[in-house]
C-alpha cells in the first residue's frame, strides 16, 4: 500500500501474527476493565480515543513488514501513549509524561538515524530481506553503528537498562488499564524490534550477543532489585516488568549467540514474552481494582485490604506464581527453557574450550533474579492478602465489604488472562520439562526467594535514594548541554551582527582619519586665506592662522618691534649681508 510517500508493506507471518493477536486480546481485556475503572474519571472520551489510537499503532508496528513502516507506527504509538500517561494531569503525571516523551522522541530520532544508516548500507528495509542483505557487511563498523542506533530506539521503548528510567515513573501515574498495556504490549514492541536486530541483522555475532546478554543481565537484576525496594504497588509491578524484559533480552542474546540455532532459546523467549504480557495484564488489573476502591497505592496504606477478598487473592496468586516460575505454571516452562538454553551454550563452549566464566556468571544472575522475583511477588501477596493493616480501624473498614469491590464484568474479564496462562501451562505439561536438571534451576531460585522473603518479612524497605534520572540525566542534559550549546548558538547568531558592525565601523574610522588629515590642513589654510577676502575685517592680514603660531609671532616681533618696521634700513642691510656671505662662501668654496 502506498502511504506517506513510500510503499508500506504488512505481513502476518510468524511472530508478527502472534503478537497482533496478543495485542487484540490484551486491548479487549483492558478495554473491558477500564469501562468500570474509568467510570468516575474525567475526560473519558479523550482516554478512549487515544487508547484505540494506540491500539491501531501497536497493531501497525507488529504487522509491518519493513522497518520504515514499523518506525512510522512506532512514533505514532509513542505520542498516543503519551496522552494516556498524562491522563489525570497531576504534577507527577506531567513530570513523568515529560520524561516519557523526551525518551520516546530521543529514542525515535536515534532509531531513525539507525534506519538511515541501514538503508544507506543495505539499500532495503524489508525485514524478510534483512538477513541476507546484512550478511556481506557482517562485522563492519557501519552495520554496528546502524544496529546500535536502532537498539537505542527499541531499547528505550522496551525499557532496557540505561533508558528504563521512564517505566518506574510512567506506570504508577497512568490509569491501571493503560499501564497494563504500557507494560504488557508497548514494551513488547521494543522487544520485537530488538528481535529483528539481533536475530535477523546480526545473527551469530559474538560481540553483539555478548553486549545484549550483558544488558539483559543488568536489566534483570536491577529491575528485580528496584521492585523489591519499591513501596508502591504499581511501581513494584513496573520494576518487575523491567526485570522480566531483562529475562527476555537474555533469551534474545542467547538466540543471537547461537545464530538462531538453539531452538530452546527462541521458543523460550517468545513464550516468556507471551507469559509476561498476560501476567502484567492480570497483576495491573488487580492493582487497578485496588486503586479503584482505595485510590491509594502505597503498600503501607493498602496493607490488609484483600484479606476478605478471596477471588482477587486467587487472581493475584496465579499471577505471582506464574511470574516466579513455580513449577507447574507456564512461567516455569519459559524460564526453564531460557535457563536450559544458557546451560546448553555453556556446555557447548566447554567442549570448544573457551572460557565460560562469563556465562556461568550470567546463569547465576539469572537464578538470583528469579529468586528476587519470587521474593517481591510474595511480599506483595502477603502485604495485600495476608497481613493486617497496622491501624485497626483501617483494617476494620477494609474488612466490611459492604459493596462489591469489582463488578462482575471486570471480575470475569480479569479471569480471562489467568485462565489463558493456566491453559498455556497445561499445554506445555510434557515430561521432559520436569527432568531434574530443569527442576533444580527453578527450585534454587525459589529457595533464594523464600530465604529473602523471610529475611525482609514485615519491614518496609526505604525507597532507593539514588534515582538515576534526577541524579544523572536531567542535570547532565539540562544543566550542562543546553546552556553550553545555547551559549555557542548565541555566540554564532551574534557573529553575523558583530561582523557587520565591525567592518562598517572600520571603514568609517579609516575614512575619518584620512579626511581629518587633509581637511585639517585645508581648513587652516583657507581660514587664513579667507581673511583676505573679508574687506571690512579690521585686521586684513590673511595669514591669520599663522599669526597664532609661536614662530610666526617671534618673526613678527623681530620685524615690528626690534627693527621698528619690516622695511627699515637695518633689516635690509642685515638681509643684504647675509646674502653676500652666502655668495662668497659658496663661490669661493668651489
Amino acid at each position, binding site marked *: 500500500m502506498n502511504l506517506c510517500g513510500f510503499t508500506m508493506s504488512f505481513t502476518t507471518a510468524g511472530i508478527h501474527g502472534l503478537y497482533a493477536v496478543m495485542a487484540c486480546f490484551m486491548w479487549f481485556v483492558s478495554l473491558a476493565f477500564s469501562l468500570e475503572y474509568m467510570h468516575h474519571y474525567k475526560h473519558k472520551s479523550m482516554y478512549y480515543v487515544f487508547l484505540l489510537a494506540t491500539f491501531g499503532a501497536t497493531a501497525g508496528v507488529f504487522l509491518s513488514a519493513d522497518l520504515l513502516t514499523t518506525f512510522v507506527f512506532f512514533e505514532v504509538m509513542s505520542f498516543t501513549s503519551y496522552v494516556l500517561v498524562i491522563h489525570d494531569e497531576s504534577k507527577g503525571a506531567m513530570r513523568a509524561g515529560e520524561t516519557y516523551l523526551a525518551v520516546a522522541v530521543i529514542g525515535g530520532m536515534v532509531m531513525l538515524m539507525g534506519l538511515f544508516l541501514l538503508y544507506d548500507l543495505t539499500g532495503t528495509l524489508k525485514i524478510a530481506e534483512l538477513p541476507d542483505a546484512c550478511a556481506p557487511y557482517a562485522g563492519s563498523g557501519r552495520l554496528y553503528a546502524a544496529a546500535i542506533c536502532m537498539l537505542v530506539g527499541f531499547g528505550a521503548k522496551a525499557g532496557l537498562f540505561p533508558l528504563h528510567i521512564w517505566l518506574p515513573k510512567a506506570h504508577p501515574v497512568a490509569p491501571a488499564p493503560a499501564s497494563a498495556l504500557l507494560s504488557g504490549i508497548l514494551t513488547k514492541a521494543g522487544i520485537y524490534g530488538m528481535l529483528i536486530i539481533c536475530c535477523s541483522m546480526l545473527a551469530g555475532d559474538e560481540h553483539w550477543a555478548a553486549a545484549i546478554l550483558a544488558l539483559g543481565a543488568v536489566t534483570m537484576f536491577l529491575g528485580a532489585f528496584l521492585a523489591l525496594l519499591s513501596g508502591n504497588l504499581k511501581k513494584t509491578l513496573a520494576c518487575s516488568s523491567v526485570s522480566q524484559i531483562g529475562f527476555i533480552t537474555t533469551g534474545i542474546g542467547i538466540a543471537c549467540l547461537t545464530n538462531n540455532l538453539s531452538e530452546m532459546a527462541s521458543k523460550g523467549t517468545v513464550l516468556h514474552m507471551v507469559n509476561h504480557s498476560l501476567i502484567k495484564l492480570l497483576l495491573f488489573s488487580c492493582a487497578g481494582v485496588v486503586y479503584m476502591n482505595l485510590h491509594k497505592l502505597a503498600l503501607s496504606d493498602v496493607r490488609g485490604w484483600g484479606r476478605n477478598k478471596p477471588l482477587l487473592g486467587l487472581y493475584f496468586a496465579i499471577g505471582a506464581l506464574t511470574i516466579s516460575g513455580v513449577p507447574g505454571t507456564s512461567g516455569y516452562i519459559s524460564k526453564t527453557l531460557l535457563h536450559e538454553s544458557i546451560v546448553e551454550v555453556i556446555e557447548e563452549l566447554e567442549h570448544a574450550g573457551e572460557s565460560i566464566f562469563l556465562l556461568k556468571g550470567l546463569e547465576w544472575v539469572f537464578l538470583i533474579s528469579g529468586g528476587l522475583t519470587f521474593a517481591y511477588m510474595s511480599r506483595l501477596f502477603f502485604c495485600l492478602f495476608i497481613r493486617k493493616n497496622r491501624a485497626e480501624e483501617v483494617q476494620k473498614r477494609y474488612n466490611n465489604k459492604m459493596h462489591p469491590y469489582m463488578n462482575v464484568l471486570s471480575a470475569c474479564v480479569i479471569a480471562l488472562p489467568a485462565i489463558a496462562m493456566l491453559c498455556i501451562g497445561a499445554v506445555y505439561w510434557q515430561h521432559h520439562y520436569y527432568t531434574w536438571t530443569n527442576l533444580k534451576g527453578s527450585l534454587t531460585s525459589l529457595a533464594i526467594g523464600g530465604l529473602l522473603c523471610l529475611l525482609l518479612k514485615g519491614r518496609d524497605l526505604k525507597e532507593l535514594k539514588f534515582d538515576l534520572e534526577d541524579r544523572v540525566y536531567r542535570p547532565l542534559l539540562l544543566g550542562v548541554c543546553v546552556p553550553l550549546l545555547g551559549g555557542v548558538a548565541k555566540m554564532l547568531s551574534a557573529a553575523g551582527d558583530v561582523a557587520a558592525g565591525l567592518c562598517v565601523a572600520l571603514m568609517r574610522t579609516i575614512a575619518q582619519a584620512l579626511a581629518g588629515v587633509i581637511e585639517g590642513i585645508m581648513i587652516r589654510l583657507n581660514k587664513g586665506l579667507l581673511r*583676505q577676502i573679508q574687506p571690512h575685517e579690521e585686521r586684513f592680514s590673511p*595669514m591669520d592662522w599663522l599669526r597664532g603660531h609661536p614662530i610666526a609671532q617671534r618673526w613678527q616681533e623681530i620685524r615690528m618691534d626690534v627693527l621698528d618696521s619690516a622695511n627699515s634700513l637695518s633689516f635690509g642691510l642685515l638681509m643684504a649681508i647675509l646674502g653676500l656671505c652666502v655668495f662668497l662662501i*659658496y663661490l669661493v668654496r668651489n
Partner: protein
Amino acid sequence: MSLVQNVPAFSILLLMLCGIVCLVLPRRAARHLADCAIALVAAASVALLVYFLQGGAAYTYSMGEIGAPFGNELRAGMLEAAVATLFSIVTLLSLMGGRAHLRSDIGRLKVNLYYISTLFLLCSMLALVYTNDIFTAYVFVEINTITACGIVMSKEDGYTLAASMRYFIMSLIGSGLFLISICILYAVTGHLLMSNIQEAVAQLYAQGEYRAPLQVAIALMGVGLSLKSALWPFSSWLPDAHSSASASSSAMLSGLVLKSFIFLMIKIFYRVIGAGIVRTHAVLDLLLVFGILGMVMGSVNALFERDIKRLLAYSSVGQIGYIFCGVGLGTPAGVAAAMVQVAVHATTKAMLFCAAGGLMDASGGSKKFRDIEGAGRRDPYAGVAFIVGTLSMIGIPFFGGFITKLSLVQAAVTVGGWRNLLSILAIIVSTILTAIYYINVLAIIFRAPETAPTKASEKLKEEWKKQVRLDTEYEVAIVLFILLNLAIGLRSDQLMQIITTGLSMFG
C-alpha cells in the same frame, strides 16, 4: 656704416642734451620736450631693430676715434635694440599714465626737475644696454641710482623721503660692490673693454691662475647687481620705495630700472666672463636658488599686504625671482625665458602701477583695500587693466604671462636633476599664490560698494562719487599697455625669434 648704426650713441646723447635743456624751460614746455625726446629715441630704436631684423650683424661703435685703453665703445645687437625700444616705449607710457598724479604729488615747481631725472634715467638705462665698456657701465649705474632716487623723492611726503633714503643707501652699497669687482677685473686682466677682458679671462681660466680673485669678482658683481635689481634677500628696500613713489615713477622703477641692471648682469656674465665658463659656474646655482626663494617669498609677503601698491611691489619681487630663476638655469632657453619675462613684466607691472594710480583717484587717494572697494566699477580702465594683469599673471593663453610660463617651463623641463623639480614646484606654488592675491584684488575692486562700508571711508566715497573725471592721457596709456601685453601674448613667435637671435649675436 649706414645712418641707423649710430642710433645708440645718438639716443644717449640726445637724452642728455634734452635733460639739460629742460632745466631752463617752463613747466609745460619741459613736459612736451621730454615726451617728444623719448618718442624720438623710441622711434630710433625701432629703426635700429628693423635694421637688425633685415639681417644686420651686431657691430661695435667706438665713441670718438680714441684708441682702446681710453676710447669708449658701444655694442649694438638685435637684443639690445629690442630692449632699448621696450624701455623707451614703457617710459613714455608710464609718464603718460602717471601724468595726473604728477600734478597732485609733485609741486608745480619741481615738475621739470622730475622730467630731467626721467630723461637722465632713460639715458642711463640705454647706456647700460649698449655699453661695451664696464667702466662706462659703472658710470651710468651711478647716474641711474641718483636719478631713480630722484624720481622717488619727488613726491615729497615724509614717508617717501625715508623710503628713498633707504633705497639710496642700499643702491650705493650695490654699486660700491660693483665698482670693487670692476677694479679686481681690471687689476687681473688689464682691460676695460668687455671683449678684451673676455679673452683675458678665458686665457686665465685655461691656465688656472688667479682663480680666487676671479671668483670674488664674480661674487661681488653678482651681489651688487642683485641688490640693485631687488633679488629676494636684497629686496627689502623695494616695497617702500616703489609703493610710496607716485604712479608713473613706481611704474618706471619696477618696470624698467630693475630690468636694466638684470640686462647688465646678463651682458657681463656672457660678454665679460664668457658663455662657456658661466654655464657651469656656481654663481648660476645661487641665482637659481635665490630666484626660487624670491618667487615664493615675494608672493607669500604679498598675501600679507592690505595696501594695493605694496601688494604690487611685493609681486614684482616675485616676478624678479622668475627672471633670476630663468637666468639661473644656465641654458640659452633659460636666459631666453628670463628675457621674455623682462619684457612681459615690464609692460604688465607698469600698467598695474598706473592702474593702481587710477584706482586711488577713484577712491579718494587712499591705497587701503577697505577704501578701494568697488573702485573697479568706478574706473573701468583700471578694472580692465587689473583683469588683464591677473589673467596674464595666472598664465591664460593669449596673454603675456602665458608665454613666460610656457618658456620657463620648457627651459626648466630640459634641465635635469634637482633644478628641474625645484623650479617646477616653485612655479606651481608661485602661480597659486599669485592667482590668490590677484583674484582677491579683483574680488575687492569689483565688489558692489553697498556691502556695509565702514564709517571712516564713508565721507570719502561721497566726494569721489561726484567728481571722478577721467583724463584721456591716462586712458590712452592704459589701453596701449593692454595692447602691448596682448601683442606679446599673440605675437610671441616674433619676440622669441628676436630674443634667440639676439642672444646668439650677443657672445
